[in-house]
């Protein structure tokens, strides 16, 4: 018995099963000796959607494509959740209320994977497999409903927004402008947690979300779109679900990608307004430049501890680089993980970002287009500092690109810059620092004077070493640089 179970492969190759059926669906009993947890999910036609009474549904599919995409999806679920088996059968054709539209069955060694795999398949199915749904309503109307696109419901639209339409500045005309507008949120984190719900609730017609990250438990104190159960799941998926529940009339586009130089133009060009909710300086500067290129308005905010900063960049106003012509090194001011952050700070700033976007779409009030607002939530103090176009701006003026002079990208870049140099390791003894190449060890905590000559300062991640380099540059010494990314980023073939 013991021998047999030892030789039994832990995870079998599973043939992905995805079928379409024109006949009513009946769940079959599934069996698998290596699995202990079996989940059967049945999705049925219900008699209401989007607050309207539904009589029946019609499903239509590109059958070949649906099956091949469906098989890929099931195979992915098997690998992702270590399923022992997984099958999906989806109905096509006309279905009455109470009929089964889809059956998903998963089996895994333990129940947790079986449940998680089943739900994941269901979430993905709606977006990836070309099956369309048409709803037939009791009032005689009908409409095709996409995975992200809500069913049409002008009445719900009107009910949801009645209190804001009472405002003279909005009215029906303003509400129509909101419905026609599209807003891209970059980053589905703490700022988005403030911004996204209010844009959705106000009835902005189309919201795009871009973020490649998954929910971490350390996010939850500020990223309140998510709950403990969402840990490990894609932020854009959960945030989109949040919006769908809050206001099903909003169309949500989810992009589980990282914003890069390669894709930024495509995204920025596709939306009317861009909201920067990112948590890093390179993304903020990348967005600033792309928005200027495409003449799109940008609302950018950032937070630190108890404080936040907010500004709006209009196509004809001063930009972020007008204010900061020198591109800062990525880690020069630390991250939320390093500095700490109070949850209400990004929440507050995110809500103010939503307000800037609403001002733009509806045309009330005054933008922060020639000001930067600083907010300190310890005291409630806010300050508005005015800012102007900078003729030397590298983005909208004739200025040159300048990078933070305190950093080098690699040891070879230091070699190219200095020829000869000394490596100074500022990690603490309790980090058990190790470097193969010749170096001087001067822990950051008790750092005295640095030696003469060209120096490359290193630490584990490049944060402390950058502070040291900046300190010496400020004192007038320009031959001290920090290794970006620190020892942790050294390639295996680089000297350690």
């Amino acid at each position, binding site marked *: 018995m013991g021998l047999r179970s030892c030789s039994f492969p832990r995870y079998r190759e599973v043939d992905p099963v995805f079928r379409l059926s024109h006949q009513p669906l009946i769940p079959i009993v599934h069996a698998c000796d290596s699995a202990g947890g079996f989940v059967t999910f049945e999705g049925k036609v219900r008699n209401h959607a989007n607050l309207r009474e539904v009589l029946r549904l019609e499903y239509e599919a590109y059958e070949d494509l649906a099956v091949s995409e469906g098989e890929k999806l099931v195979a992915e679920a098997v690998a992702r959740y270590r399923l022992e088996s997984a099958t999906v059968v989806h109905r096509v054709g006309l279905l009455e209320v109470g009929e089964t539209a889809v059956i998903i069955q998963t089996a895994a060694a333990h129940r947790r994977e079986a449940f998680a795999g089943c739900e994941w398949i269901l979430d993905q199915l709606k977006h990836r497999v070309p099956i369309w749904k048409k709803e037939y309503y009791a009032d005689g109307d009908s409409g095709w409903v996409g995975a992200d696109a809500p069913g049409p419901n002008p009445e719900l639209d009107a009910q949801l927004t009645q209190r804001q339409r009472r405002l003279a500045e909005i009215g029906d005309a303003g509400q129509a402008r909101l419905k026609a507008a599209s807003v891209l949120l970059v980053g589905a984190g703490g700022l988005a947690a403030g911004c996204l719900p209010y844009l959705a609730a106000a009835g902005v017609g189309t919201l795009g979300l871009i973020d490649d990250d998954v929910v971490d438990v350390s996010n939850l104190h500020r990223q309140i779109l998510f709950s403990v159960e969402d840990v490990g799941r894609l932020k854009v998926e959960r945030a989109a679900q949040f919006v769908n529940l809050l206001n099903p009339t909003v169309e949500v586009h989810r992009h589980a990608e990282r914003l890069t130089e390669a894709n930024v133009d495509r995204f920025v060009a596709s939306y009317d307004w861009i909201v920067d909710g990112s948590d890093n300086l390179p993304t903020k500067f990348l967005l600033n430049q792309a928005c200027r290129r495409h003449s799109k308005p940008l609302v950018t905010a950032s937070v630190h501890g108890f404080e936040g*900063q907010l500004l709006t960049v209009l196509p004809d106003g001063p930009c972020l680089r007008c204010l900061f012509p020198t591109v800062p090194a990525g880690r020069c001011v630390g991250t939320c993980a390093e500095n700490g952050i109070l949850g209400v700070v990004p929440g507050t700033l995110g809500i103010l970002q939503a307000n800037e976007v609403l001002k733009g779409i509806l045309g009330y009030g005054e933008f922060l287009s020639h000001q930067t607002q600083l907010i300190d939530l310890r005291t409630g103090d806010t300050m508005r*500092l*005015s800012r102007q176009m900078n003729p030397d701006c590298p983005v909208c003026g004739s200025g040159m690109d300048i990078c933070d002079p305190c950093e080098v990208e690699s040891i070879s870049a230091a070699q190219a810059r200095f020829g000869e140099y000394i490596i100074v390791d500022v990690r603490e003894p309790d980090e058990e620092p190790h470097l193969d190449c010749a170096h001087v060890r001067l822990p950051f905590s008790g750092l005295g004077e640095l030696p003469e000559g060209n120096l490359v300062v290193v630490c584990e991640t490049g944060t402390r070493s950058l502070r040291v380099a900046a300190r010496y540059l400020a004192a007038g010494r320009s031959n001290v640089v920090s290794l970006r990314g620190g020892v942790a980023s050294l390639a295996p073939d680089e000297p350690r």
Partner: protein
Amino acid sequence: MTVRYFAVLRDRRGVGEETLSTDCESIGDFICELVVKHQLDLAPALIRAAQDGSFVDDSTPIRDGAQIVLVPPVSGG
């Protein structure tokens, strides 16, 4: 004059606001002086100063009794 520190500069300086006097004539020189004196650990070129409510460039003369706000890049989201 009074100097207010924002975000990481406040953390590194240890206070949010202080009253100071200086022999520096320009904003840029004053930023350099503060960075060195208080080990603010940020290249002076990355720090922007507002004098009496408006951002100014480094060559701007310091006004007597001015309120100066020092703003670094802020990255968190």
